[in-house]
Protein backbone atom coordinates (compact mmCIF):
# COMPACT_ATOMS: atom_id res chain seq x y z
CA UNK A 1 0.00 0.00 0.00
CA UNK A 2 1.07 3.62 -0.58
CA UNK A 3 2.17 6.07 2.09
CA UNK A 4 3.73 9.52 2.71
CA UNK A 5 2.87 12.41 0.42
CA UNK A 6 3.53 12.96 -3.28
CA UNK A 7 4.29 15.99 -5.41
CA UNK A 8 1.60 16.63 -8.01
CA UNK A 9 2.37 18.37 -11.29
CA UNK A 10 -0.12 19.56 -13.90
CA UNK A 11 1.82 20.05 -17.12
CA UNK A 12 -0.17 21.86 -19.82
CA UNK A 13 -3.08 19.59 -18.83
CA UNK A 14 -5.95 20.11 -21.27
CA UNK A 15 -9.44 18.66 -21.55
CA UNK A 16 -11.58 19.32 -24.57
CA UNK A 17 -14.93 17.70 -25.32
CA UNK A 18 -15.26 17.11 -29.06
CA UNK A 19 -14.60 20.25 -31.05
CA UNK A 20 -15.91 22.54 -28.32
CA UNK A 21 -13.88 25.04 -26.30
CA UNK A 22 -11.57 23.52 -23.69
CA UNK A 23 -12.99 22.72 -20.25
CA UNK A 24 -9.47 22.84 -18.84
CA UNK A 25 -6.99 24.84 -20.87
CA UNK A 26 -3.23 24.15 -20.64
CA UNK A 27 -3.26 24.05 -16.86
CA UNK A 28 0.23 24.05 -15.42
CA UNK A 29 0.87 24.09 -11.71
CA UNK A 30 2.84 22.19 -9.09
CA UNK A 31 1.47 21.15 -5.72
CA UNK A 32 4.41 20.48 -3.37
CA UNK A 33 4.23 17.28 -1.34
CA UNK A 34 2.17 17.65 1.83
CA UNK A 35 0.40 20.87 0.83
CA UNK A 36 -3.26 21.67 0.30
CA UNK A 37 -4.00 23.17 -3.11
CA UNK A 38 -7.52 24.57 -3.42
CA UNK A 39 -9.03 24.86 -6.89
CA UNK A 40 -11.61 27.61 -6.84
CA UNK A 41 -13.51 29.57 -9.44
CA UNK A 42 -16.92 30.28 -10.94
CA UNK A 43 -18.96 27.42 -12.39
CA UNK A 44 -17.66 26.62 -15.85
CA UNK A 45 -14.13 27.20 -14.61
CA UNK A 46 -13.35 23.51 -14.94
CA UNK A 47 -12.23 22.96 -11.35
CA UNK A 48 -13.99 19.61 -10.89
CA UNK A 49 -12.89 18.55 -14.38
CA UNK A 50 -9.28 19.38 -13.47
CA UNK A 51 -9.62 17.28 -10.30
CA UNK A 52 -11.04 14.29 -12.15
CA UNK A 53 -8.24 14.43 -14.71
CA UNK A 54 -5.88 13.40 -11.90
CA UNK A 55 -7.51 10.02 -11.19
CA UNK A 56 -8.50 9.63 -14.85
CA UNK A 57 -12.23 9.65 -14.17
CA UNK A 58 -11.98 12.11 -17.06
CA UNK A 59 -9.28 11.35 -19.64
CA UNK A 60 -6.76 14.04 -20.61
CA UNK A 61 -6.97 15.42 -24.14
CA UNK A 62 -3.38 16.65 -24.14
CA UNK A 63 -0.62 17.59 -21.75
CA UNK A 64 0.29 15.46 -18.77
CA UNK A 65 -0.17 15.05 -15.02
CA UNK A 66 2.58 13.53 -12.90
CA UNK A 67 2.49 12.18 -9.37
CA UNK A 68 5.97 12.07 -7.86
CA UNK A 69 7.36 12.37 -11.35
CA UNK A 70 5.35 9.48 -12.76
CA UNK A 71 2.86 10.21 -15.51
CA UNK A 72 -0.67 9.09 -14.70
CA UNK A 73 -0.94 7.86 -18.29
CA UNK A 74 1.71 5.20 -17.74
CA UNK A 75 -0.06 3.65 -14.76
CA UNK A 76 -2.77 1.02 -14.71
CA UNK A 77 -5.96 2.98 -14.12
CA UNK A 78 -7.31 0.91 -11.22
CA UNK A 79 -3.89 0.87 -9.52
CA UNK A 80 -3.68 4.65 -9.98
CA UNK A 81 -7.10 5.20 -8.40
CA UNK A 82 -6.46 2.90 -5.45
CA UNK A 83 -3.40 4.98 -4.66
CA UNK A 84 -5.38 8.24 -4.52
CA UNK A 85 -7.85 9.11 -1.77
CA UNK A 86 -11.12 10.34 -3.25
CA UNK A 87 -13.77 12.30 -1.37
CA UNK A 88 -16.89 13.64 -3.08
CA UNK A 89 -19.65 16.03 -2.06
CA UNK A 90 -22.32 13.39 -1.54
CA UNK A 91 -19.75 11.07 0.06
CA UNK A 92 -20.97 8.00 -1.81
CA UNK A 93 -20.74 5.65 1.16
CA UNK A 94 -21.99 2.17 0.30
CA UNK A 95 -25.39 1.95 2.02
CA UNK A 96 -25.23 -1.84 2.31
CA UNK A 97 -21.98 -1.85 4.26
CA UNK A 98 -21.18 -0.88 7.82
CA UNK A 99 -18.99 2.12 8.54
CA UNK A 100 -16.11 -0.26 9.20
CA UNK A 101 -16.58 -2.09 5.89
CA UNK A 102 -16.85 1.24 4.08
CA UNK A 103 -13.60 2.43 5.60
CA UNK A 104 -11.99 -0.89 4.66
CA UNK A 105 -12.95 -0.60 0.98
CA UNK A 106 -9.54 0.15 -0.53
CA UNK A 107 -7.48 -1.93 1.96
CA UNK A 108 -9.72 -4.86 0.97
CA UNK A 109 -8.87 -4.24 -2.68
CA UNK A 110 -5.23 -4.44 -1.58
CA UNK A 111 -6.00 -7.81 0.07
CA UNK A 112 -5.88 -6.75 3.71
CA UNK A 113 -7.66 -9.13 6.11
CA UNK A 114 -10.58 -8.46 8.43
CA UNK A 115 -8.51 -7.95 11.54
CA UNK A 116 -6.19 -5.46 9.92
CA UNK A 117 -9.18 -3.54 8.60
CA UNK A 118 -10.91 -3.57 11.99
CA UNK A 119 -7.86 -2.09 13.72
CA UNK A 120 -7.36 0.48 10.97
CA UNK A 121 -11.04 1.48 11.01
CA UNK A 122 -10.95 2.19 14.75
CA UNK A 123 -7.77 4.20 14.31
CA UNK A 124 -9.31 6.28 11.55
CA UNK A 125 -12.61 6.80 13.36
CA UNK A 126 -10.66 8.32 16.20
CA UNK A 127 -8.67 10.45 13.76
CA UNK A 128 -11.85 11.90 12.20
CA UNK A 129 -13.45 12.42 15.61
CA UNK A 130 -16.00 9.61 15.72
CA UNK A 131 -16.56 7.16 18.55
CA UNK A 132 -15.56 3.50 18.01
CA UNK A 133 -19.24 2.51 18.35
CA UNK A 134 -19.79 3.95 14.86
CA UNK A 135 -17.88 1.03 13.31
CA UNK A 136 -20.88 -1.30 13.21
CA UNK A 137 -23.44 1.27 12.13
CA UNK A 138 -24.87 1.67 8.65
CA UNK A 139 -24.60 4.94 6.68
CA UNK A 140 -28.37 5.50 6.73
CA UNK A 141 -28.19 6.11 10.49
CA UNK A 142 -25.56 8.86 10.23
CA UNK A 143 -25.95 12.64 9.88
CA UNK A 144 -24.50 14.47 6.88
CA UNK A 145 -21.47 15.62 8.84
CA UNK A 146 -20.84 12.13 10.24
CA UNK A 147 -21.07 10.63 6.76
CA UNK A 148 -18.48 13.04 5.45
CA UNK A 149 -16.16 12.16 8.34
CA UNK A 150 -16.52 8.50 7.41
CA UNK A 151 -15.92 9.44 3.76
CA UNK A 152 -12.69 11.11 4.81
CA UNK A 153 -11.67 8.09 6.89
CA UNK A 154 -12.38 5.83 3.92
CA UNK A 155 -10.25 7.98 1.63
CA UNK A 156 -7.38 7.85 4.15
CA UNK A 157 -7.65 4.11 4.86
CA UNK A 158 -4.92 2.94 2.48
CA UNK A 159 -2.67 5.87 3.45
CA UNK A 160 -2.62 7.40 -0.05
CA UNK A 161 0.07 10.00 -0.81
CA UNK A 162 -2.49 12.15 -2.62
CA UNK A 163 -6.09 13.07 -1.79
CA UNK A 164 -8.65 14.51 -4.18
CA UNK A 165 -11.56 16.26 -2.48
CA UNK A 166 -14.46 17.48 -4.62
CA UNK A 167 -16.51 20.01 -2.63
CA UNK A 168 -16.54 17.65 0.35
CA UNK A 169 -18.24 20.12 2.71
CA UNK A 170 -20.52 21.66 0.08
CA UNK A 171 -23.72 19.95 1.21
CA UNK A 172 -23.22 20.48 4.94
CA UNK A 173 -24.77 23.28 7.00
CA UNK A 174 -22.49 26.24 7.81
CA UNK A 175 -21.88 25.50 11.50
CA UNK A 176 -20.95 21.87 10.97
CA UNK A 177 -18.98 22.86 7.87
CA UNK A 178 -16.81 25.28 9.87
CA UNK A 179 -16.12 22.55 12.42
CA UNK A 180 -15.25 20.03 9.73
CA UNK A 181 -12.90 22.56 8.12
CA UNK A 182 -11.11 23.10 11.44
CA UNK A 183 -10.83 19.38 12.05
CA UNK A 184 -9.64 18.79 8.52
CA UNK A 185 -6.81 21.26 9.08
CA UNK A 186 -5.91 19.59 12.38
CA UNK A 187 -6.00 16.19 10.71
CA UNK A 188 -3.81 17.44 7.88
CA UNK A 189 -1.23 18.54 10.49
CA UNK A 190 -1.09 14.88 11.50
CA UNK A 191 -1.22 13.05 8.18
CA UNK A 192 0.45 15.62 5.89
CA UNK A 193 -1.02 14.45 2.61
CA UNK A 194 -0.88 16.26 -0.68
CA UNK A 195 -4.44 17.47 -1.16
CA UNK A 196 -6.28 18.90 -4.13
CA UNK A 197 -9.49 20.45 -2.84
CA UNK A 198 -12.25 21.84 -5.05
CA UNK A 199 -14.68 24.45 -3.76
CA UNK A 200 -16.70 27.36 -5.12
CA UNK A 201 -16.44 29.12 -1.76
CA UNK A 202 -13.64 31.71 -1.63
CA UNK A 203 -13.66 31.84 2.16
CA UNK A 204 -13.20 28.07 2.36
CA UNK A 205 -10.34 28.32 -0.15
CA UNK A 206 -8.62 31.01 1.93
CA UNK A 207 -9.11 29.11 5.14
CA UNK A 208 -7.88 25.72 3.92
CA UNK A 209 -5.44 26.37 1.11
CA UNK A 210 -1.67 26.49 1.45
CA UNK A 211 -2.02 27.63 -2.15
CA UNK A 212 -5.04 28.63 -4.15
CA UNK A 213 -5.51 28.14 -7.88
CA UNK A 214 -8.18 30.42 -9.28
CA UNK A 215 -9.67 29.13 -12.51
CA UNK A 216 -11.69 31.32 -14.82
CA UNK A 217 -14.29 30.53 -17.49
CA UNK A 218 -12.86 28.15 -20.07
CA UNK A 219 -10.62 26.39 -17.56
CA UNK A 220 -7.76 28.87 -17.67
CA UNK A 221 -5.60 29.50 -14.61
CA UNK A 222 -6.00 33.09 -13.47
CA UNK A 223 -3.65 32.99 -10.50
CA UNK A 224 -1.87 30.36 -8.43
CA UNK A 225 -0.42 31.60 -5.19
CA UNK A 226 -0.67 31.66 -1.42
CA UNK A 227 -3.88 33.10 0.06
CA UNK A 228 -1.92 36.12 1.34
CA UNK A 229 -0.58 36.99 -2.10
CA UNK A 230 -3.89 36.42 -3.85
CA UNK A 231 -5.68 38.72 -1.39
CA UNK A 232 -2.86 41.27 -1.26
CA UNK A 233 -1.83 41.29 -4.90
CA UNK A 234 -4.58 39.87 -7.11
CA UNK A 235 -3.17 39.25 -10.59
CA UNK A 236 -5.97 41.04 -12.41
CA UNK A 237 -9.49 42.45 -12.29
CA UNK A 238 -11.05 39.00 -12.50
CA UNK A 239 -9.20 37.68 -9.45
CA UNK A 240 -9.82 40.89 -7.46
CA UNK A 241 -13.52 40.70 -8.22
CA UNK A 242 -13.71 36.99 -7.54
CA UNK A 243 -12.08 37.16 -4.10
CA UNK A 244 -14.40 40.06 -3.28
CA UNK A 245 -14.31 43.74 -2.40
CA UNK A 246 -13.67 42.78 1.21
CA UNK A 247 -10.39 41.07 0.34
CA UNK A 248 -8.49 43.37 2.73
CA UNK A 249 -10.66 42.12 5.57
CA UNK A 250 -10.26 38.52 4.41
CA UNK A 251 -6.50 39.02 4.50
CA UNK A 252 -6.81 40.15 8.13
CA UNK A 253 -8.54 36.89 8.94
CA UNK A 254 -5.43 34.97 7.85
CA UNK A 255 -3.32 36.31 10.73
CA UNK A 256 -3.78 36.32 14.50
CA UNK A 257 -2.64 38.66 17.24
CA UNK A 258 0.18 36.22 17.96
CA UNK A 259 1.69 37.17 14.58
CA UNK A 260 2.09 40.83 15.63
CA UNK A 261 4.77 42.49 17.70
CA UNK A 262 3.08 43.68 20.89
CA UNK A 263 3.65 46.88 22.85
CA UNK A 264 4.70 46.19 26.44
CA UNK A 265 2.06 48.60 27.72
CA UNK A 266 -1.15 46.92 28.80
CA UNK A 267 -3.47 49.23 30.72
CA UNK A 268 -7.17 49.69 30.00
CA UNK A 269 -9.11 48.62 26.92
CA UNK A 270 -10.93 45.63 25.44
CA UNK A 271 -9.16 42.30 25.82
CA UNK A 272 -8.65 39.46 23.40
CA UNK A 273 -6.63 36.22 23.53
CA UNK A 274 -3.62 35.99 21.25
CA UNK A 275 -5.22 33.42 18.91
CA UNK A 276 -7.85 35.99 17.84
CA UNK A 277 -7.67 36.80 14.13
CA UNK A 278 -6.80 40.39 13.19
CA UNK A 279 -10.20 40.63 11.56
CA UNK A 280 -12.03 39.78 14.79
CA UNK A 281 -9.68 42.03 16.75
CA UNK A 282 -10.52 44.96 14.48
CA UNK A 283 -14.23 44.21 14.78
CA UNK A 284 -13.84 44.29 18.57
CA UNK A 285 -12.09 47.69 18.50
CA UNK A 286 -14.80 49.11 16.26
CA UNK A 287 -17.55 47.77 18.48
CA UNK A 288 -15.91 49.13 21.65
CA UNK A 289 -14.96 52.46 20.05
CA UNK A 290 -11.42 51.79 21.28
CA UNK A 291 -8.00 52.34 19.74
CA UNK A 292 -5.93 49.93 21.79
CA UNK A 293 -6.50 46.23 22.38
CA UNK A 294 -5.02 44.29 25.30
CA UNK A 295 -3.73 40.90 24.27
CA UNK A 296 -3.98 38.07 26.79
CA UNK A 297 -2.43 34.62 27.03
CA UNK A 298 -4.21 31.32 27.45
CA UNK A 299 -4.95 32.02 31.13
CA UNK A 300 -6.36 35.47 30.42
CA UNK A 301 -3.32 37.34 31.77
CA UNK A 302 -2.33 40.46 29.75
CA UNK A 303 0.87 40.03 27.74
CA UNK A 304 0.89 43.31 25.81
CA UNK A 305 -1.25 45.42 23.52
CA UNK A 306 -1.75 46.51 19.93
CA UNK A 307 -3.23 49.66 18.39
CA UNK A 308 -5.69 49.89 15.55
CA UNK A 309 -2.85 51.06 13.28
CA UNK A 310 -0.81 47.97 14.19
CA UNK A 311 -3.68 45.78 13.02
CA UNK A 312 -3.93 47.56 9.70
CA UNK A 313 -0.20 47.88 9.07
Amino acid at each position, binding site marked *: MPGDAAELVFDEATKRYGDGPPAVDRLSLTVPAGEICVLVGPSGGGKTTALKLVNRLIPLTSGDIRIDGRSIQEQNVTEL*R*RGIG*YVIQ*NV*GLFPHQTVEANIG*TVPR*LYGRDRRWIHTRALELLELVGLDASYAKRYPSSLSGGERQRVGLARALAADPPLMLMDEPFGAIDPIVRARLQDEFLRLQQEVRKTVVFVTHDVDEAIKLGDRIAILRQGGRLAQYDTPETILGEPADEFVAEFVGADRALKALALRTLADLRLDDTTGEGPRAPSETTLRDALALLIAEHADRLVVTDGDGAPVGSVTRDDLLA
Partner: protein
Amino acid sequence: MNVLAGGPVIPNFGSGSSCEQTNGWWCTDWLSAHWGDTLQPALVQHVELSLIAVGIGFAFSLVLALAGYRFRLLDPPIGVVADFLYTIPSLALFQLLVPLTGLTVTTVEIALVSYTLLILYRNIVAGLSGVPADALEAARGMGFTRLQTFVRVELPLAVPAIVAGLRIAVVSTISIATVAAFVIPQGLGRPIFIALNQDLFKTEILAAGGLAIALALVADGLLVLAQRALTPWSRA
Protein backbone atom coordinates in the same frame (compact mmCIF):
# COMPACT_ATOMS: atom_id res chain seq x y z
CA MET B 1 -57.30 -33.14 -23.45
CA ASN B 2 -58.00 -35.90 -21.01
CA VAL B 3 -56.98 -34.55 -17.65
CA LEU B 4 -57.55 -37.84 -15.96
CA ALA B 5 -55.23 -39.91 -18.11
CA GLY B 6 -52.87 -42.09 -16.12
CA GLY B 7 -53.90 -40.80 -12.72
CA PRO B 8 -54.31 -42.74 -9.49
CA VAL B 9 -57.51 -44.64 -8.74
CA ILE B 10 -60.50 -42.35 -8.29
CA PRO B 11 -61.90 -42.48 -4.75
CA ASN B 12 -64.87 -44.79 -4.54
CA PHE B 13 -67.63 -42.85 -2.88
CA GLY B 14 -69.88 -45.89 -2.87
CA SER B 15 -67.78 -47.52 -0.22
CA GLY B 16 -66.67 -44.28 1.45
CA SER B 17 -67.66 -42.81 4.77
CA SER B 18 -70.97 -41.09 5.24
CA CYS B 19 -69.17 -37.76 5.05
CA GLU B 20 -67.88 -38.65 1.60
CA GLN B 21 -71.21 -40.00 0.47
CA THR B 22 -72.94 -36.77 1.41
CA ASN B 23 -70.09 -34.71 -0.10
CA GLY B 24 -69.20 -32.99 3.19
CA TRP B 25 -67.05 -29.82 3.41
CA TRP B 26 -64.20 -31.39 5.34
CA CYS B 27 -64.05 -35.21 5.52
CA THR B 28 -61.09 -35.90 7.78
CA ASP B 29 -61.26 -39.64 7.14
CA TRP B 30 -60.89 -39.03 3.40
CA LEU B 31 -58.05 -36.64 4.00
CA SER B 32 -56.12 -39.07 6.18
CA ALA B 33 -56.76 -41.90 3.73
CA HIS B 34 -55.64 -39.95 0.65
CA TRP B 35 -52.95 -37.63 1.96
CA GLY B 36 -50.28 -40.15 1.00
CA ASP B 37 -51.57 -41.17 -2.44
CA THR B 38 -53.07 -37.89 -3.65
CA LEU B 39 -52.39 -34.65 -1.80
CA GLN B 40 -48.81 -35.09 -0.71
CA PRO B 41 -47.48 -36.15 -4.15
CA ALA B 42 -49.44 -33.31 -5.75
CA LEU B 43 -47.91 -30.86 -3.30
CA VAL B 44 -44.37 -32.08 -3.98
CA GLN B 45 -44.96 -31.91 -7.74
CA HIS B 46 -46.35 -28.41 -7.34
CA VAL B 47 -43.27 -27.26 -5.46
CA GLU B 48 -41.04 -28.80 -8.13
CA LEU B 49 -42.95 -27.21 -11.02
CA SER B 50 -42.85 -23.79 -9.34
CA LEU B 51 -39.19 -23.95 -8.26
CA ILE B 52 -38.00 -24.97 -11.71
CA ALA B 53 -40.08 -22.23 -13.34
CA VAL B 54 -38.88 -19.46 -11.02
CA GLY B 55 -35.29 -20.76 -11.13
CA ILE B 56 -35.11 -20.78 -14.91
CA GLY B 57 -37.11 -17.57 -15.15
CA PHE B 58 -34.72 -15.87 -12.72
CA ALA B 59 -31.64 -17.02 -14.63
CA PHE B 60 -33.09 -15.75 -17.93
CA SER B 61 -34.27 -12.50 -16.39
CA LEU B 62 -30.91 -11.83 -14.75
CA VAL B 63 -29.06 -12.21 -18.05
CA LEU B 64 -31.65 -10.11 -19.89
CA ALA B 65 -31.64 -7.48 -17.15
CA LEU B 66 -27.84 -7.20 -17.27
CA ALA B 67 -28.09 -6.65 -21.02
CA GLY B 68 -30.94 -4.16 -20.66
CA TYR B 69 -29.15 -2.29 -17.87
CA ARG B 70 -25.75 -2.14 -19.54
CA PHE B 71 -27.08 -1.36 -23.00
CA ARG B 72 -30.02 0.95 -22.41
CA LEU B 73 -31.18 0.60 -26.03
CA LEU B 74 -32.06 -3.04 -25.38
CA ASP B 75 -34.30 -2.26 -22.41
CA PRO B 76 -37.48 -1.19 -24.30
CA PRO B 77 -37.55 -4.17 -26.75
CA ILE B 78 -36.86 -6.72 -23.98
CA GLY B 79 -39.55 -5.10 -21.86
CA VAL B 80 -42.09 -5.18 -24.68
CA VAL B 81 -41.49 -8.88 -25.39
CA ALA B 82 -41.81 -9.72 -21.68
CA ASP B 83 -44.98 -7.60 -21.52
CA PHE B 84 -46.43 -9.42 -24.50
CA LEU B 85 -45.71 -12.89 -23.05
CA TYR B 86 -47.33 -11.84 -19.80
CA THR B 87 -50.58 -10.84 -21.53
CA ILE B 88 -51.22 -14.27 -23.13
CA PRO B 89 -53.81 -16.17 -21.07
CA SER B 90 -52.26 -19.34 -19.66
CA LEU B 91 -54.81 -21.72 -21.19
CA ALA B 92 -54.28 -20.15 -24.62
CA LEU B 93 -50.52 -20.44 -24.22
CA PHE B 94 -50.86 -24.15 -23.36
CA GLN B 95 -52.97 -24.67 -26.49
CA LEU B 96 -50.33 -22.95 -28.59
CA LEU B 97 -47.49 -24.98 -27.08
CA VAL B 98 -49.01 -28.47 -27.02
CA PRO B 99 -48.68 -29.03 -30.81
CA LEU B 100 -44.99 -28.12 -30.50
CA THR B 101 -43.90 -29.69 -27.23
CA GLY B 102 -46.76 -32.10 -26.49
CA LEU B 103 -48.44 -32.89 -23.18
CA THR B 104 -45.18 -32.60 -21.28
CA VAL B 105 -43.55 -30.86 -18.35
CA THR B 106 -41.65 -28.80 -20.93
CA THR B 107 -44.90 -27.26 -22.16
CA VAL B 108 -45.90 -26.33 -18.62
CA GLU B 109 -42.49 -24.91 -17.74
CA ILE B 110 -42.27 -22.82 -20.91
CA ALA B 111 -45.56 -21.20 -19.99
CA LEU B 112 -44.69 -20.71 -16.31
CA VAL B 113 -41.24 -19.30 -17.11
CA SER B 114 -42.79 -16.86 -19.61
CA TYR B 115 -44.96 -15.40 -16.89
CA THR B 116 -42.04 -14.80 -14.51
CA LEU B 117 -39.95 -12.89 -17.06
CA LEU B 118 -41.82 -9.61 -17.00
CA ILE B 119 -41.93 -9.31 -13.21
CA LEU B 120 -38.35 -10.43 -12.64
CA TYR B 121 -36.83 -8.53 -15.56
CA ARG B 122 -38.49 -5.26 -14.62
CA ASN B 123 -37.60 -5.57 -10.95
CA ILE B 124 -33.96 -6.46 -11.54
CA VAL B 125 -33.51 -3.56 -13.96
CA ALA B 126 -35.27 -1.21 -11.52
CA GLY B 127 -33.05 -2.44 -8.68
CA LEU B 128 -29.84 -1.94 -10.64
CA SER B 129 -30.96 1.46 -11.93
CA GLY B 130 -31.79 2.54 -8.39
CA VAL B 131 -28.19 2.23 -7.15
CA PRO B 132 -27.15 5.72 -5.98
CA ALA B 133 -24.96 7.51 -8.54
CA ASP B 134 -22.59 8.80 -5.83
CA ALA B 135 -21.90 5.26 -4.60
CA LEU B 136 -21.01 4.28 -8.16
CA GLU B 137 -18.78 7.32 -8.59
CA ALA B 138 -17.02 6.58 -5.31
CA ALA B 139 -16.50 2.96 -6.40
CA ARG B 140 -15.00 4.06 -9.70
CA GLY B 141 -12.85 6.69 -8.04
CA MET B 142 -11.47 4.19 -5.52
CA GLY B 143 -10.32 1.83 -8.25
CA PHE B 144 -13.04 -0.82 -8.50
CA THR B 145 -13.06 -2.75 -11.74
CA ARG B 146 -16.35 -3.08 -13.63
CA LEU B 147 -16.86 -6.58 -12.25
CA GLN B 148 -16.02 -5.53 -8.68
CA THR B 149 -18.47 -2.64 -8.95
CA PHE B 150 -21.18 -5.02 -10.11
CA VAL B 151 -20.58 -7.78 -7.57
CA ARG B 152 -19.80 -5.60 -4.54
CA VAL B 153 -21.99 -2.56 -5.11
CA GLU B 154 -24.67 -2.83 -7.77
CA LEU B 155 -25.93 -6.36 -7.13
CA PRO B 156 -26.16 -6.14 -3.30
CA LEU B 157 -27.94 -2.79 -3.55
CA ALA B 158 -30.42 -4.23 -6.03
CA VAL B 159 -31.33 -7.12 -3.67
CA PRO B 160 -34.45 -5.51 -2.13
CA ALA B 161 -35.97 -4.86 -5.57
CA ILE B 162 -34.93 -8.30 -6.80
CA VAL B 163 -36.49 -10.05 -3.79
CA ALA B 164 -39.64 -7.96 -4.22
CA GLY B 165 -39.83 -9.27 -7.79
CA LEU B 166 -39.16 -12.84 -6.68
CA ARG B 167 -41.98 -12.67 -4.16
CA ILE B 168 -44.50 -11.68 -6.81
CA ALA B 169 -43.10 -14.20 -9.30
CA VAL B 170 -43.17 -17.07 -6.78
CA VAL B 171 -46.70 -16.39 -5.58
CA SER B 172 -48.10 -15.96 -9.09
CA THR B 173 -46.25 -19.04 -10.37
CA ILE B 174 -47.65 -21.19 -7.55
CA SER B 175 -51.09 -19.91 -8.44
CA ILE B 176 -50.74 -20.41 -12.22
CA ALA B 177 -49.13 -23.84 -11.76
CA THR B 178 -52.51 -25.29 -10.74
CA VAL B 179 -53.57 -24.83 -14.37
CA ALA B 180 -50.72 -27.16 -15.40
CA ALA B 181 -53.12 -30.04 -14.68
CA PHE B 182 -54.72 -29.28 -18.05
CA VAL B 183 -51.54 -30.53 -19.69
CA ILE B 184 -49.91 -33.01 -17.32
CA PRO B 185 -51.24 -35.04 -14.38
CA GLN B 186 -49.15 -33.14 -11.88
CA GLY B 187 -49.44 -30.47 -9.25
CA LEU B 188 -52.22 -29.38 -6.92
CA GLY B 189 -54.40 -28.61 -9.92
CA ARG B 190 -54.85 -32.32 -10.53
CA PRO B 191 -56.85 -33.22 -7.38
CA ILE B 192 -58.93 -30.11 -8.00
CA PHE B 193 -59.78 -31.18 -11.53
CA ILE B 194 -60.56 -34.70 -10.39
CA ALA B 195 -62.86 -33.39 -7.69
CA LEU B 196 -64.57 -31.05 -10.15
CA ASN B 197 -65.33 -34.09 -12.30
CA GLN B 198 -66.77 -36.01 -9.34
CA ASP B 199 -69.82 -33.99 -8.46
CA LEU B 200 -67.62 -31.24 -7.03
CA PHE B 201 -66.17 -33.26 -4.18
CA LYS B 202 -65.78 -30.38 -1.75
CA THR B 203 -63.24 -31.82 0.66
CA GLU B 204 -60.72 -32.49 -2.08
CA ILE B 205 -61.19 -29.08 -3.73
CA LEU B 206 -60.80 -27.28 -0.40
CA ALA B 207 -57.80 -29.34 0.65
CA ALA B 208 -55.89 -28.94 -2.64
CA GLY B 209 -56.84 -25.28 -3.00
CA GLY B 210 -55.91 -24.65 0.61
CA LEU B 211 -52.56 -26.33 0.12
CA ALA B 212 -51.82 -24.10 -2.90
CA ILE B 213 -52.64 -21.00 -0.87
CA ALA B 214 -50.60 -22.20 2.10
CA LEU B 215 -47.68 -23.02 -0.17
CA ALA B 216 -47.75 -19.50 -1.64
CA LEU B 217 -47.87 -17.92 1.82
CA VAL B 218 -45.02 -20.06 3.14
CA ALA B 219 -42.84 -19.35 0.08
CA ASP B 220 -43.53 -15.63 0.40
CA GLY B 221 -42.67 -15.72 4.10
CA LEU B 222 -39.42 -17.56 3.41
CA LEU B 223 -38.44 -14.90 0.88
CA VAL B 224 -39.16 -12.14 3.41
CA LEU B 225 -36.90 -13.91 5.91
CA ALA B 226 -34.22 -14.35 3.23
CA GLN B 227 -34.33 -10.66 2.43
CA ARG B 228 -34.00 -9.73 6.08
CA ALA B 229 -30.94 -11.93 6.36
CA LEU B 230 -29.45 -10.56 3.12
CA THR B 231 -30.09 -6.86 3.70
CA PRO B 232 -29.55 -5.98 7.36
CA TRP B 233 -28.67 -2.47 6.16
CA SER B 234 -32.15 -1.71 4.86
CA ARG B 235 -33.54 -1.85 8.40
CA ALA B 236 -30.84 0.33 9.97
